[in-house]
């Protein structure tokens, strides 16, 4: 997975995300912010699922499903590439 574009994002602790290259901004909820920060620190998908199951009351299966959905949105926004 190519996260080069994701690395350029300025992520505010309140969940406000600014893409300095395109001038587009996004907002993410607490979980989205958690995932974005993990992705920016180079954590793998499997590790993120572990973090999510530790941090939240969620099964690994549900966490993976939600993470896939979130990643699909990042991909649609050209923030990550497979």
């Amino acid at each position: 997975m190519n996260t080069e574009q994701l690395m350029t994002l300025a992520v505010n602790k309140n969940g406000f995300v600014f893409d300095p290259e395109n001038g587009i901004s996004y907002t993410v909820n607490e979980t989205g912010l958690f995932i974005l920060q993990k992705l920016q620190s180079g954590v793998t998908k499997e590790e993120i699922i572990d973090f999510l199951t530790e941090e939240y009351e969620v099964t690994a299966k549900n966490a993976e499903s939600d993470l896939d959905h979130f990643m699909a949105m990042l991909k649609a926004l050209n923030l990550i590439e497979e």
Partner: protein
Amino acid sequence: MLQLDDLQISIAVSGLKTGDNPQPGIPVIRSLRAAGFKGKIIGFVYDAMESGIYLEDIADEIYQMPYPSTGAESFLTRLGYINSRSKIDVIIPTLDSEIPLYIRLQKELQELGIHTFICTEKQFNLRDKSKLFQYFTSEDITVPKTVLLNSVAEINKAIQDIEFPVFIKGHLYEAYKANNIIEAQKYFLELQAKWGLPVILQELIEGDEFNVVILGDGKGNCLGMVPQRKLVITDKGKGFGGVVVNNPALEKFAQKVIKSLSWRGPCELEIIKDKEGAFHLLEINPRFPAWVRLAEGCGQNQPAATVLLALGNQIEELPPFKPGVLFIRHSEDIISNINLLGEISVNGELIRKQKKQEEIK
């Protein structure tokens, strides 16, 4: 940061209208003041209702100018009169329609001791909307397909090569998106009546639009460059909010444009990035844009640099801009006195700080 604190000169700036279609004069003046300029600001207006006339602490003196369409002679006569009343050292013209006059009058202005830092006639002509496609395509800079229309009937031929929706643009100002031939014909007739021929039909490219304010040194280099993406767009297509972006590929594209023209002076590039990530040049405006204060706000006071360049100073490249700096345009009512309107309407001039200046002398 550039400072103009010690500069005891007079700087004339045109385009003082704000409101829904703001001109760049007021932000240019504010940037000069922000650089510590304490000398005299002279405002050039074409209309007594230009709102900047009524702002206190903007222009010390205001003079009404003849419209550029009246010709160089009346323009120069008026400049000579103003210069005899109040010595002008530098003029920063900010309106497209007056730039050709200032270019043509360079020699006469020099004789009057008036300095400018603007593009050459050749540069001005090459960036003309009607020549942009032809010139830049040969320079390997992509421009949306463009056809010049001299009659409404020519739309039929043009759309054989360009699909709807398209832009229909006036020769100097205004652009409309036309979704079909009926709309294209309607906008053609409107723009023809307003701005004359040719009317321009241009391919519409979907994507992200960026605007870049640049100060070129006339040798192919950019002394300053600030790119922004519009965040708030009015129904007239005017950007009333924007954010500074950091996009190296966009900057490289803009530099290529400036190098190709060896652009001298201020300009604004309108660029679109298509869905495949390729950049296309939409327009080059030969003056500062109305959002030029964003350049000052993110570390590049380009109007202040222009004054120094006009005076013949060598300046270094302006410092890097700060991405993420935002501007939001705000309009408010100015409360003034009808006497000011009377003064500018009857006398064609308004001397606001004469007493203060006399006291200083």
